[in-house]
């Protein structure tokens, strides 16, 4: 069983790693590492560029965030700071390449730079060096300037980390992405947002009702969700205007909106037609809703973001809920899970994988220990992602396809966690109140 799981993990890693290892192979960067293996990266703390007293908290926020972003990226083997040469390098002239390239550091890549506050502004200079390329080591050299605040120090760290991840990983990193989720910490279930790493959490809606199922639009302009008034309706929060904007009301109960990745369509579950819940598709304005399914307990649709020609959803049409896939016109419905209690599908950005929550062996006396699983849609091969840690539900893929954010009761209450798609790097992102239904932004 363990071996089989390992094989599956390897397969999964190939699925995920394939797009960027291919790009990596074509790229001209001489990494000095074997293609496909994690790149051994050293990230030195940045040096103070001046003696401004504001530097301390800014530098601390920056260094912490940069390290965390690179560590979270899932493509680096981070070299522990205790192995680094003495003295913090702040500029290229401070670098002794052999000290970084030889044991014990033995780094393939080195990130370093400096930060300085002056006149209310913070300036950061950052470099990425290919340590083994002694003649022309510089891969990146960047300068950033923002109003001096710890939020901006984190923001600059995210940007620089993303540059490094994009350059070495082949596709943009997620350090500047957001997660939208539902939190009870105001006393009501409201829509909240945070940075992908759990920093900068704040409340968006104040409806004093029950908000559920947030889904951010692909252009980051709006968040669709479902809220309880005199009935459940799809509601829209504008991230551009920082307020609710209008969306048509439909009959019956309307739940679980989902955007097509081109932003032109919304799929959702509604009882407007038959009194029981079916999947509908409408323009993203809410115009021209039409029914796609007749399953009576159909909910949680999600588009294949690569093609937008397929929709995965949950249906109780055959008993306990299972995952189904159909064409976006409602034809060609296929059940893809064969047992247990399977809910909350999330389609990976490359269109190849479905993450979902599954009580695989469901039965009387077996408490609801739901775990996350990932299915290769073409082969229907399934890999278990979480193990023995409470109830895990609502997976949502990061735009780079390397991470999954989800809700879990593993800490005792429902909280938002993230994990690399190979099951490693598990991190708790929320702690206050109950936090559920995370949704990762498209960029």
């Amino acid at each position, binding site marked *: 069983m363990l071996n089989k799981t390992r094989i599956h993990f390897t397969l999964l890693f190939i699925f995920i790693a394939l797009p960027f290892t291919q790009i990596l192979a074509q790229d001209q960067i001489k990494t000095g590492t074997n293609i496909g293996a994690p790149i051994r990266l050293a990230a030195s703390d940045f040096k103070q560029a001046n003696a401004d007293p504001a530097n301390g908290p800014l530098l601390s926020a920056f260094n912490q965030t940069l390290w965390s972003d690179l560590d979270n990226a899932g493509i680096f083997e981070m070299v522990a700071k205790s192995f680094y040469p003495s003295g913090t390098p702040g500029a290229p002239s401070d670098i002794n390449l052999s000290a970084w390239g030889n044991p014990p550091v033995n780094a393939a890549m080195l990130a370093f730079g400096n930060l300085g506050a002056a006149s209310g502004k913070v300036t950061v200079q950052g470099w990425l060096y290919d340590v083994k390329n002694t003649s022309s080591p510089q891969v990146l050299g960047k300068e950033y300037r923002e109003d001096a605040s710890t939020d901006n120090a984190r923001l600059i760290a995210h940007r620089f980390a993303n540059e490094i991840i994009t350059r070495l990983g082949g596709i943009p990193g997620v350090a500047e992405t957001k997660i939208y989720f539902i939190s009870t910490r105001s006393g009501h279930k409201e829509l909240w947002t945070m940075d992908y790493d759990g920093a900068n959490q704040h409340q968006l809606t104040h409806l004093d009702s029950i908000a559920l199922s947030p889904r951010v639009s692909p252009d980051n302009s709006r968040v669709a969700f479902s809220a309880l008034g005199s009935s459940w309706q799809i509601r829209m929060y504008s991230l551009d205007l920082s307020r609710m904007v209008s969306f048509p009301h439909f009959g019956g109960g309307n739940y*679980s909106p989902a955007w097509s990745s081109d932003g032109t369509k919304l799929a959702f579950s509604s009882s407007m037609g038959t009194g029981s819940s079916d999947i509908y598709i409408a323009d993203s304005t809410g115009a021209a809703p039409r029914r796609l399914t007749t399953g009576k307990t159909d909910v949680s649709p999600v588009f294949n973001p690569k093609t937008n020609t397929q929709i995965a959803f949950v249906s109780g049409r055959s008993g306990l809920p299972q995952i189904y896939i159909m064409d976006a016109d409602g034809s060609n419905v296929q059940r893809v899970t064969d047992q247990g209690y399977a*809910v909350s599908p999330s389609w990976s950005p490359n269109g190849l994988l479905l993450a979902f929550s599954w009580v695989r062996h469901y039965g009387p006396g077996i408490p609801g220990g739901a775990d996350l699983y990932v299915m290769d849609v073409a082969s229907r091969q399934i890999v278990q992602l979480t193990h023995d840690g409470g109830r895990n539900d*609502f997976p949502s893929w990061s735009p780079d396809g390397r991470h999954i954010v989800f809700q879990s009761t593993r800490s005792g209450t429902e909280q938002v966690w993230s994990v690399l798609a190979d099951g490693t790097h598990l991190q708790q992102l929320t702690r206050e109140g109950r936090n559920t239904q995370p949704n990762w932004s498209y960029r």
Partner: protein
Amino acid sequence: MNYCKKHWTLILGSLVLLMMVSGCKKKPPPTPPAPPPKPVTATLSANPTSITAGQPSTLTWSTDGADDVTLDGQKVNVSGSQTVQPTETTTYHLAAKGAGGTQEATAQVSVAQPTPAPTPQPTPQPTATDEQVFAQAAQDIYFDYDKADLRPQSQQIISHLAEVMKAHPNWKVQIEGNCDERGSTEYNLALGTRRADAATQALTQAGVPADDLKTISYGKEKPVCTEANDDCWQRNRRDHFTLTQH
């Protein structure tokens, strides 16, 4: 209807009796006067004399000097008792006939109605009564795990509620489908919708206008209890009914 029949029987019986009595008078008296016949006596009583509809009352009678005794036209023993369950106030007639003549006795059983009879023009009922009547009729109905099928007991509750609703055409009722805490938030909203719809379908099939009904699912968002055990889960797998207008 029975009451009318009784009266007609009574009237017909009296007519026959009158004819017989007058017929007798026409007959010439028989030869030498016989010893005077024993006078006929009859008593009839009801116990209790007041009941509410559906309760029994016992009629007890005794006669003397009679050989033909009828109670409301039905031949009975010269003395005896009988249980009756009239639905309206009724006067019972005992007729005792003997050589010494005929004697009648009556007893009345007054019947109180349990609920006031409907009047031709319905008068608006006080709010409290409507809510009480609704609360009594609209009991929560419960479901099996992951199911939206009505149990036999739920169907009885729905049938009764349908009759009460049809008697109150101004009522509007919201049917609220609920689920236990297990499983996904979104799937439970769909399951709760189906549970509310099951009650709506049954009520409309029983003749309640669809316009008087509104369904809503609370999924697992509004539990009545939060313990993770079978008892609490069962209590949360329910349709709750709310009177929204009356």
